[in-house]
């Protein structure tokens, strides 16, 4: 079970990774879409927690690109914006959106629900 967290807010994403680690969920971090793609080229991630708005590659584009390499990868979007700019013809009915600031328990629960608790290891 591999998780990658992508957000341009470095401190935030590092802190989140640490908190997840404390709860037994090991996650890699990337500070941009490009970095995330680089990491994804080397590792097979099961789940990506993506910020929607990032400089360069946005969350939606990143999801699309990740899915090109790993079609079964699941995505959870995290956004500080109230609105979601649903661009193009992408279907977002299956996507999960969480608002900042995150409630860690909600995030963990969402992760479990998305990929199934049997795939995660709890402390």
């Amino acid at each position, binding site marked *: 079970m591999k998780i990658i967290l992508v957000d341009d807010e470095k401190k935030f994403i590092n802190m989140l990774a640490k908190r997840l680690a404390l709860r037994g969920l090991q996650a890699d971090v990337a500070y941009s879409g490009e970095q995330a793609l680089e990491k994804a080229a080397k590792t097979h991630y099961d789940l990506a927690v993506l910020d929607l708005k990032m400089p360069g590659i946005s969350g939606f584009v990143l999801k699309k690109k990740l899915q090109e390499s790993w079609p079964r990868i699941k995505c959870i979007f995290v956004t500080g*914006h109230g609105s979601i700019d649903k661009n193009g013809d992408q279907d977002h009915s299956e996507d999960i959106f969480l*608002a900042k600031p995150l409630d860690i328990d909600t995030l963990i629960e969402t992760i479990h629900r998305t990929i199934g608790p049997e795939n995660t290891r709890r402390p």
Partner: protein
Amino acid sequence: MIGKPQILHKQEWLAFLFHRHDAHLASFHTFSNYRSIWIISIIILAVTSLSPLVMATLINQRLIRQSVDAELVLQTERVTSNAKRSVRFFLEERLNALRFIVNELPYYALIDNEHLAEILSNLKLGFGGFTDLSIIDADGSQVAYAGPFNLEGKNYKTQPWFTKSLQRDNFISEVFTGYRDVPHIIIAVRSMNALGRLFILRATLDTQRLMDTLLSYKTNVHTDIFLMNHTGLLQTPSKNYGKIFTPTRLDVPEFSTTTNVIMPENKSDHAFITGYSYIITEAVTTPFILLVNKEKSVVMGTWLNLGKTFNWIIGISCLVMMIIITLVSTFMVNKLYLADKTKAETMLRMEQSQQLACIGQLSAGIAHEINNPLALINETAGYLKDLYHFTEEEQNDEEVMENLDAILEAVSRCGTITSQLLGFVRQFDVQISRVDVEKLITGILRFHKKETEYKGIHVTTAISPDTPAIETDRGKLQQILLNLINNAFQAIEANGCLDITVSHLRPDNITIEIKDTGCGIPAENLKRIHEPFFSTKKEKMGTGLGLSITYGLVKKLQGNIRVESSEGVGTIFFVTLPVKMQKEESA
């Protein structure tokens, strides 16, 4: 913030009369005083449409009156003139007969009573109207007499007519009674006998004959024809002034040789129009004035009746026109008012929307900027707490834990505020897609699963099987349901119930019912729950924006929201949404 203006759906008559001043709407109204516009429009319409009618009527009446008056004058003049000619002819004929006799016959023949009687008989036969005939010498003694009265030997020296007849060749007297006490006229002709002495041939005329002549000109009962003398004394009976010899008290008209007509100065229709003529023969001026009186009202009767009928018709027409003008003005001004009101309301709404949009965008900008540092505070504080939580030796430091919890609670509260502020932005941008309401509700309930289990809340969903997927904005509908369900969860105490029902009763819309067994809303608060920043949950971190946003979102989705609540029993929110949302230009 500004409340939603009410749109006037009911286009009642006279709405403008009951217009209430609204400070918010006033600046958007094109006109302010509809009452005065109404009155002015009625006056202008009435004046422009009725004045030509009234003017034409007045001119018409004046012309009719003038022509009737002219006709009346002509008619009276004709009658007077004809009657005058007859009377003059009557007198002239007889005077000329006497003149012929004195010139033709010698004096001795005239003073022969038998011969005189024969002459009288011939005169009666030839002309008629003669009563007697006599010869009077210059001393006033009657020399010869022929007639029914025994007047022979009478002396007329003291009689005024005798004096006058001795002074001129021909004389016609007024009507008088004389010795015999019968009204008569004397015609006298002066002549000279062979000895050069003046004598007079006098004839007495029967007034009846004259009266008959006059009466023959009386065309109707309303015409009064009579003779009076130069002092105003009646010489023949008059219908209006009475018997013969009665003083008429009329002003004796100015002397004229022609026939004249006097129009009464009094404009009343009961006045008399008077034709008069002095009777003047070629040989002598008689003491008679012929008068013809016609009552104007009777002569003009037909015309006056026609005028009255005409006035009635005009009056009724004016009344009908006034009613129509009033109705039309009222209708038009009301339409104008309603259009203006609708325009003002639309403009106010647009202004409010724009204001809201500005506030929303500003709020969203701030909220977004705050969200990132907030997220960092949240994670940092959370991590610190985690450190204490997961490292057992620090676990008992309650003071640190309490403070961290306080930070996290504050962050959570800020998060709620920013997420609701962000909700404002979402009101202004609609993206329509097909939404399965059942899936949406299930998804939302999933978020509350933990709370449901923790509080022991019994949740039921009943979705009518024929509920179609609706075309609406998914995000907004999600927000609406999330807000309402959140509200319900906050209201419900442990072991309460939350029932969500979706029904499709009408083909063009669906109704979502969210019913909780919570604390309910007091009646006085029910009206205010949609007002922004109205909150009763200050202690529970309410911002007062939730229902206000929900209300705005439902309206944005072209739906309606209604609430029923009783305190202590529970609350039901009814959200009605169209099955197919119409695209509209975003504000």
